[in-house]
Structure formats: structure tokens, C-alpha cells
């Protein structure tokens, strides 16, 4: 057969193609090129000559350093298992049991992502340190070192795991459980044979995400890790202790490995068909079971109390003159010393986070729309999808340094954004890219794939369908992305600490400075302010969803009917 049409193949939708090109180019400029300028240093020696794998050989020949590889895997593995189990149990309690206080538990689960990670460390020290509240009650654990890192990483990754399971356990096919009941299966069999397979994909995903997050985190090891070496502290030692960027680049590339494995696993899992819920599924009726409810309530309550304790400890720290030695009450710590940027840094953080949220959400949504729904440029779409997982594996320090190398270069025409708030916004958009991308792509995949075809047949321009149908239909997801960007930008430190302009200090960095200077009380006070803002943002979202949830759900159901 002649393939005559290939020759005269024309681009059906030129404006879409141009937009795709522009966005791909932006994405490359924001992530790939800066990373390249850093990673290339892994293969160079200090004077810029080619070193091949020499740096890697050198790295692994130092026993102390290669121990940190084992340490990191060890810590990340334990963290991912515990976080996943807890996240599952907590979500299961909220979705599949009849316990009380579900709403409060749900909000409480998100607390850790509303404050900078250094705060988890501070909280743990206030609770379990030598002078810790729990320690003084005779509840001693050695918090400095491995245990502290693991606890801190669990606090850090738990909300991610919980959120994944909370979504996954939402839909259940009640028929399966009814059939199992009629066959006389006991609870354990039902759990192993129905519930677990249902969430198999989420389970593996959660393990990988928690593993990757703790693999690259520096906040916890720095504050509470003591002498326990992990890859992230190695990176810090190489870069900020010995100023050896080549070795730093070597460690950075090693830190990418789990993300690449995640991607490979994701591909392998996705290519096999993971079960979808049939439209004939009926709602699962949660049966009464006092014992089960009591057990799950205990789990939730313990986790909840733990978070409450940390917030309590923070408040205590923020409101006491000098904990633990001078326990009189004061508001003085909220008068931030001008040197850390004062209250202005808090305002700056809000401005930066808003800008990040606005531009990040627009970019992600448009770009993922073109990737998921566009008809042009298959290769570019594949690349866009592939690279979307990389940022989750990038320690902030890697982003920060690579942005300096790339954007501060004289040859770079974008040089003018260096030293402005724009570079902070860009760094945040890249740093937190992976999760919102998944959210956006997921929401778009739920939309009927023929909307665009219908519109084309009716000669409605593409942008109009996008604005009038895809955007309103995905509005909850869009808000979610906005919130994710905002909340994370409020608390992030590791990347922006290298990039913030001299005249634009931000609150999360200020907290680190306060912590470093020993001003735990001020750090706690500022953290409470950030927590408050994040709660307000989250609260507004919940209020919006409360009034629109039913309508939105029904609109979505129309698309699921077939």
C-alpha cells in the first residue's frame, strides 16, 4: 500500500504545536539545561577537564562516604515501609470504618506539610530531646541519629502516603465484598484478597514516593541526624564544607537513582492493566464493627496526638521566654528581629508563594493539557511525561546550585532574572513539579476524550474548549495544584537559600537562620505564622469544595456513565 499521505503531512493545528514547542522549551530551560550544567561537573575534575568516571571511583573508594549510601538506603527503606503502613491505616480508618472525628483527623494529617521540615526536627527535640517534655516524663529515646532521622522522615512523608491512599480507598466495589460475604470469607481474607489488590498500585507508588523523598531530604539529617551520615549530608559536606562541586555533582547524580527506578516501576505497572472500578460498582456499605473501629480510632488518635504535641511544643516554645529554663509567658518572640528580614520576610514569602502558585498552576495545567489531550508532537509529549518525575528526586541544593550555574552565566540571555524574585518562583515551580503534574494529568484523563473532537466539528477554537470546559471541569484539581504550590513555597528552604535576592528575604529561610542562631522561640513563632497562612489557604479550598462538591461530583459522573 502506498503511504502517499505521509509526504504531504501537514500540521493540523499550528497554534497548538507552537504552544507545545514554547512550553517544552520553557520546561527545558527551567529544568533540563540547569541540571545539565551541574551534572556535567560529575565527569570533570576541578579545573574543568574531563574526568570520566574518576570522581565516582574516588567517591566509592572512601569507606566513610560509601557507608552513607547504605545508611541512606537503610533509613529510606524503613521510612517508606512505616509511612506507607501508617498512611494506609489512617486512610483506611477514614474511608472504611465508622470511627468518629473523621474530619478533624483528615485535616490533622496534613499538618506536617504546612510547616518547614526543620520544624519537625525542632518538634521532635522538644518532645524527645534531652530536655524533652516526654523525656522528662521518663519516656527516653535516643533522638539524635538514625531514630531521629527516621521519625522526622516519617512525619515528612506520612501526609503524602496518606493522601495517596485516601484517594485510592475512596472508590470501592461493594459487590466484591458482598460476594465474599456470601462465600463466608472472613475479614482477613477479604482484606488480603480484595482490599490489598485494589490499592496495589497505590501501595507500590507510596513506597517509592516515601523512599525517594527521604532519600534526598537534608532538613532532618541536618537538624536531628547527629553524626549519622546520609547522602544528603555528604552532598552538604562536599559543597558547603569542602567546596568541591565536582564531588557534589557525583552525589547529586546518585540521589537521582531512586527516581529513575520509580519511573521504571511506574511504567512497568502502568503497562500492565491495573484494575479500574467498573461503572456498575455499587457503593460499599461500611458495616458496624466495634472492635475494628476501636482499633483504627486508636491508631488515628495516636498519630493525631503526636502532631498535636508537636504543635503544642511549638506554641510552648514560641510563647515562653526561654524554654526550658525560663518558663514565663511572652508574646515577644513574634517581634522578629529585623536582621532576619523581620515580618517583611513573611510578606515576601506570601508574595513569592502566590506568584509560584499562579504561574506554576497555569504552566502545569496548560502543559499537561497539551501532553494528555494534544494531538501534535508525540515525541515531545513523551519527553514531557518522562521528565515530569525527575524533580521529585532533586534535592533543593541541587536545584539551587544548578540554577546559579545556569542563570548566572553571562552568556545566558535570561541572566536578568537572576537575583530577582522570578528565579525563586521558577526554582519553586521546578522543585515541586512532579506531584501537581500527576494531579493535572489525572484530572485531564478523567475528561471525555471526545470533547476536543466535538469542538473541532463545531468549529469552536481549541482555547475556548480549554477555558470553558476543561478548566471548569478540572477546577478542584486546579485549586489543589495551586494550594500545593503555595503551601510548599511557603515552607521550602533548600533550593531558595542559594537564590533569594539580597533585598527579598523569605520566612522559611529566616526560620532556618533563627534555628541556626539558636533562636528556637522565634523560629517556632514564625512557623506558627506560616502554619496559620497555610491553614487559611487550605480552609478556603475546603469551603469552596463544601459548596461545590455535590455539583462537581455529578458533572463528573456524567462522564463515567459509559
Amino acid at each position: 500500500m502506498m503511504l502517499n499521505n505521509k509526504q504531504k503531512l501537514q500540521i493540523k493545528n499550528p497554534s497548538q504545536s507552537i504552544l507545545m514547542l514554547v512550553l517544552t522549551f520553557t520546561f527545558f530551560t527551567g529544568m533540563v539545561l540547569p541540571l545539565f550544567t551541574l551534572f556535567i561537573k560529575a565527569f570533570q575534575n576541578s579545573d574543568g577537564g574531563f574526568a570520566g568516571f574518576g570522581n565516582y571511583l574516588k567517591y566509592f573508594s572512601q569507606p566513610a562516604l560509601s557507608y552513607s549510601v547504605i545508611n541512606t538506603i537503610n533509613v529510606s527503606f524503613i521510612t517508606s515501609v512505616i509511612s506507607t503502613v501508617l498512611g494506609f491505616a489512617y486512610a483506611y480508618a477514614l474511608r472504611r470504618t465508622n470511627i468518629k472525628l473523621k474530619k478533624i483527623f483528615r485535616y490533622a494529617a496534613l499538618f506536617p506539610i504546612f510547616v518547614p521540615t526543620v520544624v519537625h526536627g525542632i518538634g521532635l527535640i522538644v518532645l524527645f530531646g534531652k530536655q524533652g517534655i516526654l523525656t522528662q516524663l521518663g519516656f527516653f529515646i535516643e533522638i539524635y541519629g538514625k531514630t531521629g532521622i527516621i521519625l522526622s522522615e516519617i512525619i515528612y512523608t506520612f501526609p503524602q502516603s496518606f493522601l495517596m491512599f485516601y484517594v485510592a480507598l475512596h472508590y470501592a466495589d461493594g459487590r466484591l465484598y458482598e460476594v465474599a460475604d456470601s462465600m463466608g470469607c472472613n475479614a482477613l481474607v477479604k482484606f488480603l484478597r480484595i482490599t490489598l489488590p485494589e490499592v496495589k498500585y497505590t501501595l507500590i507508588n507510596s513506597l517509592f514516593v516515601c523512599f525517594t523523598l527521604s532519600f534526598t531530604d537534608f532538613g532532618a539529617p541536618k537538624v536531628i541526624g547527629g553524626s549519622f551520615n546520609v547522602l544528603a549530608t555528604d552532598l552538604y559536606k562536599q559543597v558547603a564544607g569542602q567546596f568541591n562541586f565536582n564531588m557534589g555533582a557525583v552525589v547529586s547524580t546518585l540521589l537521582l537513582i531512586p527516581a529513575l527506578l520509580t519511573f521504571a516501576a511506574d511504567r512497568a505497572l502502568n503497562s500492565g492493566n491495573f484494575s479500574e472500578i467498573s461503572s456498575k460498582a455499587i457503593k460499599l456499605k461500611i458495616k458496624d464493627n466495634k472492635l475494628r473501629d476501636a482499633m483504627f480510632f486508636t491508631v488515628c488518635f495516636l498519630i493525631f496526638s503526636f502532631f498535636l504535641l508537636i504543635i503544642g511544643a511549638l506554641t510552648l516554645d514560641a510563647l515562653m521566654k526561654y524554654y526550658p529554663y525560663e518558663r514565663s509567658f511572652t508574646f515577644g518572640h513574634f517581634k522578629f528581629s529585623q536582621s532576619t528580614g523581620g515580618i517583611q520576610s513573611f510578606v515576601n514569602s506570601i508574595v513569592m508563594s502566590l506568584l509560584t502558585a499562579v504561574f506554576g498552576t497555569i504552566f502545569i495545567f496548560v502543559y499537561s493539557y497539551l501532553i494528555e489531550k494534544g494531538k501534535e508532537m508525540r515525541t515531545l509529549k513523551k519527553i514531557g511525561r518522562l521528565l515530569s518525575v525527575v524533580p521529585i528526586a532533586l534535592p533543593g541544593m541541587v536545584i539551587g546550585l544548578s540554577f546559579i550555574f545556569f542563570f548566572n552565566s553571562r552568556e545566558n540571555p535570561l541572566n536578568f532574572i537572576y537575583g530577582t524574585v522570578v528565579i525563586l518562583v521558577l526554582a519553586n515551580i521546578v522543585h515541586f513539579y512532579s506531584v501537581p503534574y500527576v494531579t493535572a494529568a489525572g484530572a485531564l484523563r478523567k475528561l471525555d476524550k471526545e470533547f476536543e473532537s466535538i469542538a473541532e466539528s463545531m468549529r469552536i477554537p481549541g482555547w475556548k474548549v480549554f477555558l470553558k470546559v476543561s478548566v471548569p471541569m478540572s477546577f478542584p484539581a486546579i485549586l489543589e495544584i495551586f494550594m500545593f504550590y503555595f503551601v510548599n513555597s511557603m515552607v521550602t528552604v533548600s533550593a531558595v537559600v542559594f537564590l533569594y535576592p539580597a533585598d527579598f528575604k523569605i520566612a522559611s529561610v529566616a526560620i532556618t537562620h533563627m534555628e541556626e542562631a539558636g533562636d528556637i522561640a522565634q523560629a517556632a513563632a514564625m512557623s506558627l505564622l506560616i502554619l496559620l497562612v497555610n491553614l487559611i489557604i487550605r480552609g478556603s479550598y475546603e469551603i469552596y469544595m463544601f459548596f461545590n462538591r455535590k455539583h462537581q461530583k455529578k458533572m463528573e459522573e456524567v462522564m463515567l456513565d459509559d
Partner: protein
Amino acid sequence: MSYLKVENIYKQFAGKVALEDVNAEFEKGELVCILGPSGCGKTTLLRIIAGLETADGGKVIIDGRDCTMLPPSKRNFGIVFQSYALFPNMTVEQNILFGLSEQKKLNRKQLRSRALEVLELVDLTEHKNKYPFQLSGGQQQRTALARAIALSPGYLLLDEPLSALDAKVRSKLRLEIRRIQRELGITTVMVTHDQEEALTMADRIIVMNNAVIEQVGAPRAIYERPENKFVADFIGTMNFYHNSTGDFGIRPENIILTKNKPSENYLTGKITFLEFKGAMIRVYSKLHDNCEICADLPAETAAAMELTENDTVYLRIADRHLIQYAEALEAV
């Protein structure tokens, strides 16, 4: 000259051939069904006619114009998908107005009156302010149809438009679609895997299988004179029969079944199963050579004959009903 024509269409997806040298013509004002099992390429052909897919080879000619490489927006058609793809966040009327409002020629008032006109046509006027989730399946389907015809397109494409509906609603809507199509006199191409739908609605049927067209013709012709075994088997029920003179097919309703031995030209069988089909009874019998054959008789006749399983019956087949196939058939 035909209104719509596809010539030597070739299309493959990732090395798998979806359409192999497909030729078809569609006359102005007729309703043509493309019928075939899933995966036969029928939807791909429809999407190529719409311009939603581009053929790897061949031509699409619409109203005398070569439209092969034209984007959908320049082809002037309306389309209804299996999922309807109604915009869930818009009311029935807004769904229709969304496309209409791109018509720069019409003012606001004209737009609204056109919308009301098509809503009237599909009998949805009273539901115009409802959202899709407030409508029944049948109403959603009619909304999609109204939206597709609102712009007075040159031709209408229907992709399995009824398959998501209950049997009862489906048969009602068949008539409805046919009525509207006749009223507008619009050239319509409908893809379906439901032979009954094709037989009842179409002016002509194109039967497809494995990326090629098997037969084209009026429903009656296709039913009575299927040109090959695939068509014969796919449409209606067909008994296949093989003897020394060749391969034959016979429809169950064309077999005369008696309990009394006829004088000549008969086959003897033993009833294996009786299937009650409402107005009809389908009698399955086993012939002496272990061949199974089925025959339909009116329920009343069957009752009168007092048929039961294991009865011996005699079957007569009139020559004029026998369809002979040139190609050798494997035993059925």
C-alpha cells in the same frame, strides 16, 4: 455523483493495519450504516471521514472536493459519539449555543431561536435548562444529536450512538433518529456493531471485517443475499451446510419443519433443544450426520405441533432459499 466518497483508504496503527484499501460512496440524503464486529476498522473509517484521524493513504472526497488533509473544522459535519461527550458544566441549551455562538453571522436572538428550533426537533424544549447529569440516557443522547445538527452541517456522523442505552429506549430512539434524519434530509454515516440497528435504520449497509469491506448493499439484499460466509454469519442467524456439491447457507425461518414425513427432499433430525423467543420458537435439531441445524416457527404453530425434545422431525429446504458459497467453508 455521490456526496461523500472514500477512495483506497489505508491506515495503520503501530504496524497493525486498521483499514486496507477501503472504497465507499455515500449518496446525498441517505443513511448508511457501517456494521462490523469491534476492531474491524469501522470507527477508524468514520474518524477519517471526520478528519479526526488522517489516512496513511487514499482520499476522502466530500461534495466533489478532496478533503483528505483538511482539518475537521473545515469539513462541515456534525458528530455524535458513543459517550455523547456533552459538556457536563453546561445546560442543554448552553451545549447547543456553545457551537452556535461561533457563527459570526447570527445575532443573539437568531442564535437562541436556532437553539430552540433544534431542541424542538428532538423534543427537549422543556429540559433546556437542565444539566446533563439531570437527564436520562435517552435525553442525553438527543441533546448530543441536537448539538450535532444545530449548525446545519453538510453531513452527520454517528459513532455507536445508541449502544449505551437500554434496549427499550434504544429501539425508540432508532425511529427518532431516522425520523429526524429524513426530515432534514441529511447525509448520515452511522457506525454500529448491532446488526438489528443497521437493518432497521439504514438505507444501505457497509459490512466490514478485519480492515476490509465485506459487502455493501440495502439491508434486505445484505440479509437475503450475503455474499460471503462472514456476512452471512454476522447478520441474522444462518445454518451452514456442506455437501458434495459445495457450501450452502440457509436462514432458520426458511426451513419448513414438520412432524410428518414429507414425500421427498427432506432431512431427518432429532430435536435437541427448544428455544422460546416470544413470537417464535427456535428448534435445534441434530441431523443424521451429527450436524446441528436450527429452524424458526411461529410460536402458535409450534404449540400446535406439540414439539418436545428428542422428537424426530423432518426438515425441508426450498432451493430458492439456499445460498451457495464458492469458497470452501470449514465445518460449522
